[in-house]
């Protein structure tokens, strides 16, 4: 199963706006995607805004993205790029 590690670059981590954009991108990918914090056990469904908010990802936190299905690598590349972008 393809995996990516990304350090979250947004100044406020994954709070409402960046979390919503991430969840939308994960949902649009059309495959199962999970996100977890490096160093802890939980794998949240990246398509659930509640699960992503509850992870409480802060600026600089490293996260693990996993995806399974067609074009999983391409989807992960897009999601990793989204998280690695500092805020505009």
């Amino acid at each position, binding site marked *: 199963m393809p995996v990516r590690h990304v350090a979250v670059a947004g100044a406020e981590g994954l709070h409402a706006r960046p979390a*919503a954009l991430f969840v939308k991108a994960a949902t649009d990918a059309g495959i199962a995607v999970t996100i977890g914090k490096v160093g802890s056990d939980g794998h949240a469904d990246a398509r659930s805004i509640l699960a992503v*908010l*509850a992870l409480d990802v802060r600026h600089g936190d490293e996260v693990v993205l996993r995806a399974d299905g067609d074009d999983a690598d391409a989807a992960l590349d897009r999601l990793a790029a989204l998280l690695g972008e500092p805020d505009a």
Partner: protein
Amino acid sequence: MALKVLAPLAGAIVGLADVPDPVFADALVGPGVAIEPAADSVEVGAPIAGVLVKVKPHAFVVVADSGRGVLVHLGIDTVKLGGEGFEVLHGEGDAVAAGDPIVRWQPTAIRSAGLSAICPVVALDATSVEDIAAGGVSRGDPLFTWV
């Protein structure tokens, strides 16, 4: 089983589509409604009973036993204030009853800072909500039903 979500504060009802932030207006965070607070709406209550899964000065999420979570976001872009002007009354992980005060703030101070004080109340990951209140609400009034 339907979840009745209560108004966290008093004010005028604003459709989510009219909130000046596309993340809420496009329902990217979920369906719901927003409240333009009355000037004296300084205390914000929990919209449902549950656990305070996330608390920031300008926003909080309460998750019911059923796993359904409701987000209350105080003002738009208020994360920029870095918590100034907000007093948080509970900690993450606290169990709260519907209506329990969670945060104190000053809507008028938010507006003086040039920000919108509109408060989106959102049913996270919900498909849709019903029985949305119209006109004005007092704190604790029914706001919408999560079917």
